[in-house]
């Protein structure tokens, strides 16, 4: 009889997923039952995984096991240590929420199309993510990695009758697969450098034990970083992301954006801090710079989008950038042997990972709710929904606040920690960094501010104002609200956002073991030194923050003022808009997505490939009084033209050249053999 342990729990949750997969064919006929059975099961298994993750991080003792299947000499190794435990928690949490949400969301498909594939690949997808963080040898890691990729590929292609979805899925799969090959190679390098014969070098344990020569370590790191960036959507490898996320069903895009990208982060951390361990300064600098570029470009692209899911996708790119900044700092500090600061930045990284999982999941679910209610993705066709979807709008608002890093919600904490890390860096001496750090801080600050702008746009255009759609302004108030499972699925992450925002000390104390294991530094001792209420990462005279008090204060003051002002009865008159005495305003006069982002487009326009067309209809008295005006705006990612187009074109060019080999003339073929043999004979002689 085996005693209960985190590992047992996680195996249980994976077994439940397998069980779900077995059930699917039985209910394939009755779609509704299928939905009601499978998704709750997935929720249960995710919940169990969460417990396992939290537990294993709390105890902080790695457990590992070896399955009897796999390569003849390389069976599957599994390991659950604090790092994987943490990411298990993140993945589990979001997939728990999303699974609840999906029970409601997938009902939208009922009758329209079969969700059997959706269920199958959804389960496989989650299982794949669990296994990725659990796997402890290169081979099994790659298998689960690709399982995750394939499953999500099919999910992206779920609505495959649309050509753009197919294109998105294809692009996604190609990028993912190339990344996977790079990862494979980096493991190959590491395994080769262990110097062990046969397959024994492919276990992570073997890699942990070895001290890698810098040359090989660098090659491996670059390969791995490339591979994982392809999955994480680091610029310029991000192009698949804004295509794939809108294409996928919203619950899936919530998972992809919320946690699948995190598996890439997990991979980077695992390879860098756990397997390679020692690294030069410039790796950190490189990661930092890439992170900065990704963050700033990502958010700028996000602001330019009108499709709400594209916007969210680009904002994920930005968040990945922020996380990379933290990782870069951690690498730098480690290479300077300042474990405490490294721990601080790593904590920021972990904190932001879980934060992003929460609010991005919430936001994507919200976008799904919009889609579910209005069947539209384009913000310009929504508007005024706050009256029709009170729940969704409130929850979406909470998500927007959190992602805009506004206290007292969670987004602020991680951003704040990263700023702290930045401000502590002068204690190390390197001219390169002295120039890099201020720039970094500045760009991060700029990013943070732009995020707020982006989500004011997102929320404002979609939920506020009047209905912007051309036709069918929706019916009575609250008429479009989504069903309960979806509301709960969104409510829980919203609560998480708040909890993570006001109880950072406890969370940090919980996750402190990870950074201790990876870089040998703890911050919980100082972080909680001032009591659970105050977060003081390094020392209380350096910096302190208390989300709880902020929240409390705001509530109290607001209540107070409200009561004071309502002590005396003053009437509220509902009247038509005043708007500076403007006559007969129509909804078409509102600012729309394009006009909202126009000032920022003006400022940062040079970063994009923008084509703007304004055409006045000719039949007018005077050019300044056109009776019809036609406006068209096209914003393209410059990286297409810079990187992707050249690659594809050149490969087609080469293939044309190779096509010449085969002209159909049998004589020519004979000449080939003739020449081949002559050449070979000359060499052999």
């Amino acid at each position, binding site marked *: 009889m085996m005693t209960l342990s985190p590992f047992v729990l996680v195996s249980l949750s994976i077994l439940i997923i397998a069980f779900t997969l077995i059930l699917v064919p039985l209910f394939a006929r009755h779609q509704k039952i299928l939905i009601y059975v499978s998704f709750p099961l997935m929720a249960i298994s995710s919940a169990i995984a969460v417990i396992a993750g939290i537990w294993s991080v709390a105890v902080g003792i790695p457990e590992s096991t070896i399955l009897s299947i796999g390569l003849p000499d390389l069976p599957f190794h599994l390991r659950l240590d604090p790092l994987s435990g943490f990411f298990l928690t993140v993945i589990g949490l979001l997939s728990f929420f999303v699974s609840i949400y999906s029970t409601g969301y997938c009902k939208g498909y009922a009758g329209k199309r079969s969700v059997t594939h959706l269920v199958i690949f959804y389960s496989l997808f989650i299982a794949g993510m669990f296994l990725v963080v659990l796997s402890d040898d290169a081979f099994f890691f790659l298998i689960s990695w690709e399982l995750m990729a394939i499953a999500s590929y099919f999910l992206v292609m779920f609505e495959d009758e649309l050509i753009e979805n197919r294109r998105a899925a294809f692009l996604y799969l190609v990028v993912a697969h190339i990344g996977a090959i790079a990862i494979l190679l980096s493991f190959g390098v590491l395994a080769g450098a262990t110097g062990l014969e046969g397959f024994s070098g492919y276990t992570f344990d073997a890699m942990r034990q070895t001290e890698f020569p810098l040359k090989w370590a660098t090659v491996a790191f670059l390969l791995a970083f490339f591979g994982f960036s392809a999955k994480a959507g680091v610029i310029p490898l991000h192009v698949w992301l804004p295509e794939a996320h809108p294409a996928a069903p919203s619950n899936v895009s919530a998972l992809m954006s919320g946690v699948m990208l995190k598996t890439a982060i997990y991979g980077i951390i695992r390879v860098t801090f756990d397997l390679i361990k020692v690294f030069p300064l410039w790796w950190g600098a490189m990661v930092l710079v890439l992170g900065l570029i990704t963050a700033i470009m990502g958010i700028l692209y996000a602001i330019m989008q009108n499709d709400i899911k594209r916007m969210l996708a680009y904002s994920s790119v930005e968040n990945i950038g922020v996380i990379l900044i933290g990782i870069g700092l951690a690498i730098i500090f480690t290479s300077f042997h300042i474990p405490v600061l490294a721990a601080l930045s790593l904590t920021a990284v972990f904190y932001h990972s879980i934060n992003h999982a929460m609010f991005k999941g919430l936001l994507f679910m919200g976008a799904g709710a919009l889609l579910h209610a209005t069947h539209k993705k384009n913000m310009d066709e929504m508007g005024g929904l706050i009256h029709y979807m009170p729940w969704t709008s409130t929850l979406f608002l909470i998500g927007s606040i959190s992602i805009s890093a506004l206290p007292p919600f969670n987004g602020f904490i991680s951003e704040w920690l990263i700023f702290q890390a930045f401000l502590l860096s002068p204690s190390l001496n390197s001219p390169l960094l002295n120039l890099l750090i201020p720039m970094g801080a500045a760009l991060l600050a700029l990013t943070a501010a732009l995020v707020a702008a982006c989500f004011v746009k997102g929320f404002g255009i979609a939920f506020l104002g009047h209905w912007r759609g051309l036709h069918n302004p929706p019916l009575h108030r609250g008429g479009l609200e989504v069903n309960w499972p979806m509301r709960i699925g969104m409510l829980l992450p919203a609560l998480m956002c708040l909890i993570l925002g006001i109880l950072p000390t406890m969370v940090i104390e919980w996750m402190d073991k990870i950074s201790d294991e990876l870089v040998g530094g703890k911050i919980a001792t100082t972080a909680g030194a001032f009591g659970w209420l105050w977060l003081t990462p390094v020392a209380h005279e350096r910096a302190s923050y208390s989300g709880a008090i902020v929240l409390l204060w705001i509530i109290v003051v607001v209540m107070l003022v409200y009561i004071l002002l309502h002590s005396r009865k003053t009437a509220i008159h509902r009247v038509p808009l005043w708007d500076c005495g403007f006559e007969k305003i129509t909804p078409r006069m509102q600012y729309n997505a394009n006009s909202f982002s126009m000032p920022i487009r003006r400022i940062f326009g040079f970063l994009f490939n923008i084509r703007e067309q304004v055409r006045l209809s000719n039949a007018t008295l005077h050019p300044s009084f056109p009776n019809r005006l036609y406006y068209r705006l096209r914003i393209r990612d410059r990286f297409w033209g810079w990187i992707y187009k050249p690659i594809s074109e050149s490969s087609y060019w080469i293939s*044309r050249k*190779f*096509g*010449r*080999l*085969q*002209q*159909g*003339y*049998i*004589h020519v073929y*004979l*000449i080939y*053999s*003739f020449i081949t043999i*002559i050449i070979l*004979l000359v060499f052999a*002689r």
Partner: protein
Amino acid sequence: MSINLAAQINSIMAALILLTAFGLLVQRRMYGLLHLFAWQGLFLSVSTAIVGYVSGAHHLYISSILTLALKVVLIPYILHFLIRQLHIHKEVEQLVNVPTTMLIGIALVIFSYYLTAPIRELSTLVTRSTLAVALATVMLGLLMMITRRHAVTQIIGFLALENGLFFAATSATYGMPLVVELGVALDILIAAFIFGIFFFQIRTTFDSLDVEQMTKLKEED
């Protein structure tokens, strides 16, 4: 008949085979090609017989008879029959003009001599010097297949090439084991029937045996 005499005769045969190979390379008329090919087969079988006599490897007689039967009688007859059936006994022009072909052919002979030089040092057989000729014949056969644009001529080139192989087998090594010889002969027989069928198929679908027409399947567009 003494060994040396036999060896001399054998080398004369080799020379004749080479000559016929060149003849095949330049011959324009279909029947001429056929006759040349038959002659080559004859020389081959004779030389095989001689080698058999010299080496006392008697299974070579069998293979010599096989050669006689196949290469001198049967296959030329089949081809003759086909040519008459399909009315293709007209001039067959080449892709490369004759002088160039000759030059390339000579270059090939030199090349194969240069190639086999080290080997003949190793060999102890009286007939060792003929390996170069064998290789040359193979190469010339291949060259013929390249330069001719007619299905029948390609086949003849192919067969000439195989003659070269046989010659190599007998002269360089006093013949392969019998089972191999028989198998090869069988294969050639089947091949003969197959290209017989082919000629009809091609003829019926392309109403000409010009290989140049068969260029539908290609990559470039």
